[in-house]
């Protein structure tokens, strides 16, 4: 389901919920290793995970944003001040200097699993 391959160690993944617990084009917040992680499901059943913390408002709220598209980019709009974040990369679409962390996520047998934070060395 995810574009990203799961990390080698399955033990590093936390099962958070069934896929059907996440409405299409919405997010839920999961507690993963003590961190709040926003897990989103798009209309075509792709699943993405971002840090739930909105760096603009400094509140833990991104899972409650509206999910849609900007051009071809699947994105979530912060429920606080509407900044958009690319669900695939965590990149803020309104401010090139801001990015939120992404987490590895897979769906296995209908169960959503969230892995470790991904650190993108390229940026």
């Amino acid at each position, binding site marked *: 389901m995810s574009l990203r391959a799961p990390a080698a160690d399955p033990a590093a993944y936390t099962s958070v919920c069934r896929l059907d617990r996440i409405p299409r084009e919405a997010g839920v917040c999961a507690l993963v290793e003590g961190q709040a992680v926003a897990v989103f499901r798009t209309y075509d059943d792709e699943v993405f995970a971002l840090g739930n913390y909105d*760096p*603009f408002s400094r509140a833990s709220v991104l899972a409650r944003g509206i999910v849609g598209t900007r051009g071809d980019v699947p994105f979530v709009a912060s429920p606080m001040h509407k900044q958009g974040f690319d669900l695939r990369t965590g990149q803020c679409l309104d401010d090139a200097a801001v990015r939120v962390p992404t987490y590895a996520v897979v769906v296995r047998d209908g169960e959503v699993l969230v892995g470790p934070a991904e650190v993108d060395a390229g940026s």
Partner: protein
Amino acid sequence: MSPHLRRTLVVVGHGMVGHRFVQAAIERGLTETHDVVVVGEEPRPAYDRVALTSFFDVGAEALSFLPTGEYDDPRVRLLLGTTVEVVDPAARTLRLSDGGELAYDELVLATGAAPFVPPVPGHDLPGCLVYRTIEDLEAIREAAAGARAGAVVGGGLLGLEAANALHGLGLETHVVEMAPRLMPVQVDDAGGATLARHVEALGLVLHTGVATRAVVERDGRAAGLDLGEDGGTVEADVVVFSAGIRPRDALARAAGLDVAERGGVLVDEQCRTSDPHVWAVGECAAPGGRMYGLVAPGYAMAEVVVDALLGGPGAFTGADMSTKLKLMGVDVASFGDAFATTDGALEMVLADAVAGVYKKLVVSADGRRLLGGILVGDASAYGVLRPMVSSGIDLPDNPEELILPASRSGGAEVALPDEAQVCSCNDVSKADIVAAAACDGTTRAGATCGSCKPLVKKVVEDYFASQGRTVDRSLCEHFAMTRQELFDAVAVHGHTSFDEVVAAHGTGRGCDVCKPTVASVLASQLGRHVLGEGRAVLQDTNDAYLANIQRNGTYSVVPRVPGGEITPEGLIVIGEVARDFGLYTKITGGQRIDLFGARLEQLPDIWRRLVDAGFESGHAYGKSLRTVKSCVGSTWCRYGVQDSVRMAIDLELRYRGLRSPHKLKGGVSGCARECAEARAKDFGIIATEQGWNLYVGGNGGATPAHARLLAGDLDDETLVRYLDRFLLYYIRTADRLQRTAPWIESLDGGLDRVREVVVDDALGLGSELEAAMARHVAGYRDEWRDTLEDPDKLARFVSFVNAPDAPDPHIGFRAERGQQVPADPAEPAGPVVLGSAIPVGAPR
């Protein structure tokens, strides 16, 4: 002049021109050096005399230029109901009717004109009236009660307006004009004949080419007009004289100032009288010996005097006497050399007796320039034609296309030169408008008679088009349509979900702009739960969780307190809930109680307690009706004349849950003291002795607006009917996040248009809108009660999907003044956020 030595400027007269003078004085800084005292004889501040005919429909307040009764500038003092009895130019003093005396450094006479009443026998009998002030109209209304027929002496512009008033009061109405045609100053015989056919079709009886010899007396009252051998006798219980106006120059005459041969205070090009410290403007003035009986030249004179007092070079050198008006539904316009008096002038005439249209262009001998014209029955071309006269631009090759009906012409395009005067009332050129458009500024164009508004709109649109900008009213990248178009599309196709709407009318998967908009439109049309059938994902977070998100990600909770009335038991329940959940409490501006600091997962438990105690959602989170604020009203208040609390509760319960383009607020005051601040609301209701006045389009916030009178003295049932129509008309046609004030402003015709639709039911939509509101009222359910009863909806109210009861560790509180408030958030540990600087969003 030293700023320490303030000077005194006295303005005599607070009509349209006197008001304009004061406005200009404030705007141009004259009040920095002058204290201004305005002495007005009428009991009320200046009002729109041009629109006087609408008084019977809208009442005095809607016509007022100064509804608050004072200017914002504290250096301007307004003395109403006061006349100036004597001016002493040598001593620079004047004496007031209340015995007071005023000293002035500069004096501006703006005393206007008085109706001319021909001295025929019986002209002063009871039942003989004039048409000039609101008091005159009140007297006409009073006299018309119980009368059968009325007659107007004078078939000019004002005479026809007076006749319209009598006709509107249900009287058989006669118009007597000495000239062979109506409006002899503005139109020619053929135009007058066309106008006469229109007027007669409305049921008025015309008597042209006859003079009034006497007013017939019966029982000491006017009973008709004697029109001599040719005209016979006309029966009339009410006689209105409207046979022209005369400048009110008596004060100036008595003060020894020069007056013109035919009346009017003689002034030079700067509008200065024969005394260097006395000025005269408007209808009482006679620049160069000539009096101008229109408002536009008066405005120009007012500006000239302000300029002169500031040391400027402004001069009044004559005025455009063009006229455009709508009389009893008939367009009449006359501009430039309408009677072809220029040597060699040629006429081009289009007369369509079937359509009741007469149009004449007067062009120069070489056929290249437009000199003037007359339009009767269809004056839509006026906006383009009149500026062509003043700017002197070349006529297009086929000038007849300028007056052909739009359907038969290619729509002749005329490019106006920059200096062309677009608004003659306020002397605004095309260049002024373009300059204002370029910097988001404003002009007064269209603010007086409004006839140039279509042209102003076109100039602005052309400018933006020339800049490669179009006025894009698309909702967002997913919908190339306005909210109103979307609303109609959803209604026509009967869509019930975002997926259907975006598949049929949009692209992509939507965003934070279009999804809540579609959700609001669906809510307005379907009236189903905002969280039902997959609609939760369309809602902004406030609607999505039926609470108001706060800066730390917690929510506030507002139970409905209709009209602000609450029992002690209710207060105790709210207090107990707040105490038990540790919520911060604050009284809102809408007369209810806001409970702050609720975590997402606490919302259902908090609401279970509130619902069990009889509370329901207050919709503080929705683009929907918030509150209807009230004063305590006649139940307790010794001043109250109606039960404002009862009305506020009824209205709040009627419109609760109604989804709208933006939040909606109401207010009800029990008397004119207006303690509920109802005029700061989208709909405000103020009690009168007879019923209720309904005001619309008010709001506080960043762009405050005072609500304006929509209709007066309504009974309960009519009030509710108008409100039903108003609210649904707004909901159906407003833009996203457009409150009622800018929505009204955006309508072609503004508040008048709203009145046409809501009060006159011009679109025939009234019963449909009322039925839609009846469905809303019948279908209302408390959103929170329904949510508590539905496990699927409740499942969303958790902190973490995999740890539903674990509080988010990121949320912290500290104490302030004995209550909990958000602690400064800590950065989350763990994964780094890339980027060196993290801008912080809006501070609150």
